[in-house]
């Protein structure tokens, strides 16, 4: 970009509302606080194309929106994505099946455990194995904790984008409670790489029950705050009610799933309709609404947090003693790690065995870690219900120790297609509310 002052020489260099001529017409760079100057200069133009993002605090990450507006009305909206593309699907093709977990957990970074669980369920389906009961219940507990922290970020960022900084601090404060608990259970706040093909990386730590109950207690006292702050609040209702309307037929056409689909009235939740990880044994409700607007999506997500707490409570009762990894030394990495002085996890008993007692074990361990395990050829598609909708893993194996193809059906990516339908014909201010109600995570959209 040029630094030459392009506005009138008589007034000197103008740092605000800078403009330049292009083949497409006159282009202005509006940075905030200089809107009046832009309006003054472009007076008489009826149709303006606004480039919102990719670096803008209210676009939910590096999402760029090309808005064509007439006055305050959006005539055309186009999402432009790809700014966070990291080639995770391609990278997975060059690692073993176990290493893939470390990659997929970084896609939808607000729902890492759903990525891990979906990927591992798909690998397990390819292998024809099933994780032990305790691992399944543990996975359910982790996923529901993750759903709570993800929905809290929706509340926090959504509120911030609409101008409620109190909502933001509330949301991030409570999400931190969830992340602390996840750190206690898995060792990391985010990007856990904790769920592995065949089970989970490690058994539950001592004293987990008290910590989880403490978390539920804290959440039970704090969740009513959101009702007090938002649910009946006139500004919140005015900004969200009857905004971003997408009825059921539109949702089905556009492939929209998750809370957005349920806000249109269809109780489609994969935990209920196609249960996995033993969800059929849990008692919980799938909240729906018929309003199909941003306010309904807010209410549904808040209610889903309550339902997730309900599932976590049941997880504690259902947790049976037993192994957390399949009993197959060709697949299972050692699953009883202790944290050493360097902060790294190690299975001391396993190290003692392979280094001191059994040469065979050392060879097997070396082969399992460097070479990985073979997966019989074939393909599977395994969907799980992530906080944003159907997260599907299409894995193809050609019989080797590395995936032939890892394709992720990302709910954020698919739901983002609904943006023009949500926003066109509405006001510019409502675009922000609509984007927030889709709740896209750009790490998942771009992968």
């Amino acid at each position, binding site marked *: 970009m040029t630094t030459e002052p392009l506005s009138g020489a008589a007034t000197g260099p103008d740092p605000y509302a800078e403009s330049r001529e292009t083949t497409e017409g006159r282009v202005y760079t509006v940075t905030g606080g200089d809107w009046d100057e832009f309006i003054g200069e472009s007076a008489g133009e009826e149709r303006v194309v606004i480039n919102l993002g990719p670096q803008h605090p209210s676009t939910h990450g590096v999402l760029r929106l090309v808005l064509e507006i007439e006055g305050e009305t959006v005539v055309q909206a186009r999402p432009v*994505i*790809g700014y966070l*593309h990291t*080639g995770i*699907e*391609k*990278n997975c*093709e*060059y*690692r073993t099946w176990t290493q893939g977990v470390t990659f997929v957990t970084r896609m939808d970074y607000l729902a890492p455990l759903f990525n891990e669980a979906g990927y591992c369920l798909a690998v397990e*389906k*390819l292998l*024809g194995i099933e994780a032990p009961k305790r691992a399944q219940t543990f996975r359910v507990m982790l996923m529901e904790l993750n759903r709570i922290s993800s929905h809290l970020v929706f509340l926090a960022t959504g509120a911030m984008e609409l101008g409620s900084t109190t909502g933001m601090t509330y949301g991030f404060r409570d999400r931190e409670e969830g992340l602390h608990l996840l750190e206690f259970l898995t060792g990391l706040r985010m990007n856990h790489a904790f769920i592995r093909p065949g089970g989970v990386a490690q058994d539950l730590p001592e004293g987990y029950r008290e910590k989880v109950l403490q978390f539920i207690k804290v959440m039970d006292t704090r969740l009513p705050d959101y009702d007090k702050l938002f649910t009946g609040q006139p500004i919140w209702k005015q900004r969200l009610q009857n905004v971003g309307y997408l009825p059921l037929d539109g949702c*089905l*056409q*556009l*492939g*929209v*799933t998750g809370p957005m689909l349920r806000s249109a009235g*269809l109780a*489609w939740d994969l935990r209920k*309709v*196609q249960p996995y990880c033993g969800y059929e044994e849990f008692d919980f409700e799938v909240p729906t609404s018929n309003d199909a607007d941003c306010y309904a999506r807010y209410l549904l997500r808040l209610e889903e947090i309550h339902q997730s707490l309900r599932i976590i409570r049941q997880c504690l009762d259902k947790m049976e003693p037993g192994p957390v990894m399949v009993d197959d030394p060709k697949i299972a990495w050692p699953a009883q790690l202790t944290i050493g002085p360097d902060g790294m996890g190690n299975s001391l008993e396993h190290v003692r065995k392979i280094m001191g007692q059994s040469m065979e074990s050392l060879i097997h361990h070396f082969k399992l870690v*460097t*070479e*990985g395990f073979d997966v019989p*050829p*074939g*393909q*599977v*598609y395994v*969907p799980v219900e992530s906080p944003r909708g*159907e997260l*599907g893993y*299409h894995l*193809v194996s*050609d*019989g*080797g*120790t*590395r995936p*032939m*193809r890892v*394709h992720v*059906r990302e709910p954020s*990516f*698919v739901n*983002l*297609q609904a943006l023009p339908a949500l926003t066109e014909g509405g006001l510019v201010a409502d675009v922000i509310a609509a984007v927030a109600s889709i709740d896209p995570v750009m790490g998942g959209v*771009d*992968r």
Partner: protein
Amino acid sequence: MSRLAQDEKNREQSAPQPGGAGSSSERPGGGLEPAGGEAGFRGPVAGRPRKGMFGVSGSGDASGYGGLRLPAYVPPAAQRPFGGWFDEVADNLLAALQEKGLPDDTVQQITIDRGEITFYIRGEHLVEVCRTLRDDPALRFELCSSVSGVDYGPEVPQRLHSVYHLTSMTYRRRIRLEVAIDWPGEGDEPPKVPSVVEVYPTADFQEREAWDMFGIVYEGHPALTRILMPDDWDGHPQRKDYPLGGVPVEYKGAEVPPPDQRRAYT
């Protein structure tokens, strides 16, 4: 000819036939090696043939593993009865296609694997098949969950596949449609599949992604442009012959090669 090469040749001549006595191959090699170049459908090839082991070649092989041969994987056609609701869906679909006057070989093969059913469809009839699956009251696959491309590598005939996962919310069923694309064919023709956007608008972004990543041209797509890579990008990154890239990294005095140059054990 060097001695090593001579040894290799002798070993190849005396090596047991794949699947035969003395061979560790599970499947016979005959007829399953992708021939390539011939017209007509001979079953989808979903993998590449393997030779040797540990990803090593060109070294003095004293282990004997160098003589191993494994033919490419070809998903087998399912035999009736399929079991469960698979028969019902297959019968309804085939009957509905016949009613519409589509040729008998529209569905080239039905495969059932790991509890999932796959219909291999001829590309030219894909849109009509999708419309039937969506609208027929006995089928009702309302939701197109996922569209993805798969590249099986340069040595495989019909290397590019376009895969569709359809969901019936009414009946709670999932099926997979797969189109093996006749490519590379003659000349510089790009791989082509008809677009299903007119039946499932949700395929819009997903077909753009498959075009971006695999170079599959979805004919009839309203605006087939790149979606994840920059508009002026050269090549299609998820093809198998597109390098992953990366630089060697030094770690504790040793050099670790980039991931795509490390030894692969597959």
